[in-house]
């Protein structure tokens, strides 16, 4: 049913787009009709796929690395009072630097290849992941921590067996945000300097006044983001289900 509604919304959007082109009579090098874009997408499918693969790789690697770094930072912050007092303000302050402004510097440091785009994506998702996970790690019921203390728990065991499982849904929230931000980071990196990727392809098409190809790249990018967001949402749902015990209930729990 939801799929049907989604399709209907898509058709409606395309129809409005086509109508807009017809009614205003906008020339195709300003706003191409959906049909033209579809034709361009089909004609350049190999090209688009090649560049999309590059962008997707950058985004996925950026997501994975950024999540690992963010999770480690959050655990570190949550396990030591002084780290939290000292590092958290620094971390918040660094957020005042717009990451996009760093793109030229990153290209200078990490080159025109994938590395600078991955670093860009990592930087842009690092903070949302860190802060969401840290929030979950530190918001454990104090009664539980007291109980753990009376049981003679070690710090690391409390982290591993109470704080981290409790914070998994928060990590999921951070990941959902990251899935939206990471492609933005990668594409901006590609705009600043690249020879591959959908961002690069868009600039190239724009320069050659192939506006229909530019739109086709844009749509490929949107599709990529939507698919990524969907996959991450599924992962986040699993994390929440684990923490609430409902995955156990269905017998999907971790094997001992």
């Amino acid at each position, binding site marked *: 049913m939801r799929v049907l509604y989604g399709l209907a919304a898509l058709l409606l959007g395309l129809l409005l787009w086509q109508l807009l082109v017809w009614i205003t009579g906008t020339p195709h090098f300003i706003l191409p009709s959906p049909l033209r874009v579809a034709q361009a997408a089909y004609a350049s499918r190999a090209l688009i796929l090649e560049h999309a693969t590059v962008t997707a790789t950058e985004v996925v690697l950026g997501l994975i690395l950024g999540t690992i770094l963010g999770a480690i930072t959050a655990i570190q912050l949550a396990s030591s009072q002084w780290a939290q007092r000292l590092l958290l303000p620094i971390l918040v302050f660094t957020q005042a630097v717009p990451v996009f402004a760093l793109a030229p510097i990153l290209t200078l440091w990490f080159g025109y290849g994938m590395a600078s785009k991955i670093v860009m994506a990592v930087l842009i998702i690092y903070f949302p992941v860190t802060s969401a996970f840290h929030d979950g790690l530190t918001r454990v019921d104090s009664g539980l921590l007291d109980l753990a203390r009376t*049981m003679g728990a070690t710090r690391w065991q409390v982290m591993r067996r109470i704080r981290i499982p409790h914070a998994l849904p928060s990590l999921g929230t951070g990941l959902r945000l990251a899935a939206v931000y990471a492609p933005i980071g990668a594409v901006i990196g590609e705009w600043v300097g690249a020879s591959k990727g959908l961002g690069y392809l868009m600039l190239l098409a724009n320069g050659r006044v192939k506006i229909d190809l530019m739109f086709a790249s844009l749509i490929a990018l949107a599709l990529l983001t939507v698919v990524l967001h969907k996959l991450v949402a599924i992962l986040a749902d699993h994390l929440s289900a684990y*923490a609430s015990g409902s995955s156990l209930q269905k017998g999907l729990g971790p094997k001992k």
Partner: protein
Amino acid sequence: MTPPPAITLQGSYTLGDTRLFGPLSVHLPAGQWTCLLGPSGVGKSTILRLILDLSTGGQFTGSVQADDGQPLPDRISYMAQSDLLLPWLTVLENTVLGARLRGETPDMDRARHLLTRVGLEAHQTKTLAALSGGMRQRAALARALIEDRPVVLLDEPFSALDAGTRADMQELAAEVLQDKTVLLVTHDPAEATRLGHQILLLSPDEATVWAPPPTPPIRALQDPATLACQAELLAHLRGQVR
């Protein structure tokens, strides 16, 4: 295991500007059950937390001491007023949480045995969502009983149980915790008169000793002396509330 110590708490406790209780003295005889009664909010749970050296919202001036002079907190098993079970673990895994948190290998056989004793044998591998309030409380009881420690503090451990199960669990706890120093918080005069070597009534000014029935615990439900003591205690508590 070292023999269970006697414990004495002495002092007064303030919350902000207002005195909650004291100066008063609470003495727990070694190897015996003390049942603590008192109106809601008088500070019963707070007294448990003070003995455990856990943070409370207020200021305690006084001392908590074991008669052997050794530190207390690592010798106490604690069952808090809320069950504090972890939803991502099975009932069995919740029961052995203490060992897991200490990085030890848990005694699974003992955990299964205790779960059987609290009537959760069929629910060991289930998640908490499948449990009723009373079952959750019994899981928390099993988790407290598995900790083999000389002092046990139980904060209203049977409050969510039906009358029949409650009587069963009282007998189980009395058996497993025999000869330990136990402090049990309860609102139920029947429970206190059934289980206590000593019965303490907590008020803001003092902790009064209420004479328990002459026979040693655990006392039979239909024992006339126990029933008489229970009725007197109830009458007293009602008078106090009014």
